[in-house]
């Protein structure tokens, strides 16, 4: 479980996150949603430690990450897997080397065990027989799946995804969402996904935190979201014609 307590972050005069709190539970797909520029990616980067918040706490199973010493931070980070918006695969390494990378650097596992683990996670994300292909030789959807495989190869307890569906067609997006939900459920990971994709929200949003104008305006799940009564959230959720029709149908 990850608890975020009164997180505040500013860049110069601009406050991007203002006193935001939320609880991301284990075994659930937790979504941070909001319009572009609302601060959701900044919130994710504060949670994983790529930014340091001005104030507030981020607790990983009770361990405060923000004020932790270097060793504790390193220990927590080694329990984290992250899927970046563009995949962030190492372009000088092939698929197998990318997925094996955390095991190479962070463990003393024998080589054959590493390869077994890599093949297992590649099979889990439905990417068998792609081991020797370079990131530039595979599609965007496959790159995202390699990114997911790399994020879970080290038995991560926490999985973070920054816009996992960006640049993907709707069908591939749904497959990625389903994969993330399956992995979360199967390995009982705490998964936090930043997205503005409404399909994802409706499909896998077991806990949703909505950010607008630097503040948390609503939290709930995908069943409650259409009856939130929050104008900004309604404007976000029912932005397109199809969703408006859906709402009109009750």
């Amino acid at each position, binding site marked *: 479980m990850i608890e975020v307590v009164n997180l505040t972050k500013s860049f110069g005069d601009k406050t991007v996150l203002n006193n935001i709190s939320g609880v991301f539970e284990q075994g659930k797909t937790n979504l941070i949603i909001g319009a572009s520029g609302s601060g959701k990616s900044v919130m994710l980067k504060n949670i994983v430690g*790529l930014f340091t918040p001005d104030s507030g706490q981020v607790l990983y199973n009770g361990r405060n990450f923000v004020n932790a010493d*270097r060793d504790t931070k*390193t220990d927590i*980070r080694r329990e*984290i897997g992250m899927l970046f918006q563009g995949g962030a695969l190492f*372009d000088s390494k092939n698929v197998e080397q990318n997925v094996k990378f955390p095991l190479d650097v962070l463990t003393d596992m024998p080589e054959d065990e590493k390869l077994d683990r890599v093949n297992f996670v590649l099979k889990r994300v439905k990417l068998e027989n792609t081991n020797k292909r370079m990131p530039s030789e595979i599609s965007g959807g496959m790159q995202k799946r390699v990114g997911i495989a790399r994020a879970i190869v080290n038995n991560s307890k926490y999985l973070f995804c920054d816009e996992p569906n960006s640049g993907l067609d709707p069908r591939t997006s749904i497959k990625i969402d389903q994969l993330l939900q399956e992995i979360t459920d199967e390995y009982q990971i705490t998964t936090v996904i930043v997205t503005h994709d409404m399909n994802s929200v409706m499909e896998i949003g077991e806990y949703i935190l909505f950010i607008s104008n630097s503040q948390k305006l609503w939290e709930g799940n995908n069943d409650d979201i259409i009856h939130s009564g929050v104008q900004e959230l309604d404007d976000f959720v029912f932005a397109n014609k199809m969703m408006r029709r859906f709402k009109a149908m009750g």
Partner: protein
Amino acid sequence: MRRLGEYILFLGRLFKNRESFRTYTKLILDECVLIGLNSIVLVSIVSVFMGAVSTLQTAYNLVNPLIPKNVIGLVVRDLTILELAPTITGIIFAGKVGSSIAGNLGTMRITEQIDALEVMGINSASYLVLPKIIATLLMYPFLVILAGTLAIGGGYLAAQYGGVLPPAEYFQGLKLEFNEFSVTFALIKSVVFAFLVSSISAYMGYFTKGGALEVGQSSTRAVTVSCIAILLSDFVLAQLLLI
């Protein structure tokens, strides 16, 4: 001054929270190939012509009949060892390797590959930059020795085939009043230049912000600043160690 402070803090980060020795050994060997071996052809071509042209130009300027021809060998030798081999090779090195380091790290930064390392709990500065600096420190002195040798060889070719002076006199000049400290001085310079080129280029690339345009700008800035740093340190080292 802010940039200088950032650069010093960046260098400090290289030695904190490092990964295992085994990890670095493989990375350093890979970088030695990329940085050192891949530069041999360019350095060799430049050095041979540098030595040949130095011989021809020294001969062209040596009009006084009272000065023996073998002085050409002496001039080419000292010019090559003291200045051309370490400094000109350094500037070529900054163009080839410095821009490559900055471009590589800059691309990794804008495509979030550096963030990916940080999230895994890996000190990205140390993991990515330290092997490049160590490999450069190991390989650049060898390139300077190679450059010096080939430049003197190039001078011989010019003497032999350019009809400037008989090769025997050229060799006689090479041995004339030889001071071993010149070689030590060249190697000291090579270590300093290697450190400056690799660390400055890594700093420029590592802190790239933006997109493809900024990666290009970081590479250009890395080469420019590295060249200026080489020339400044060249002057300081000459002042400190030769005068």
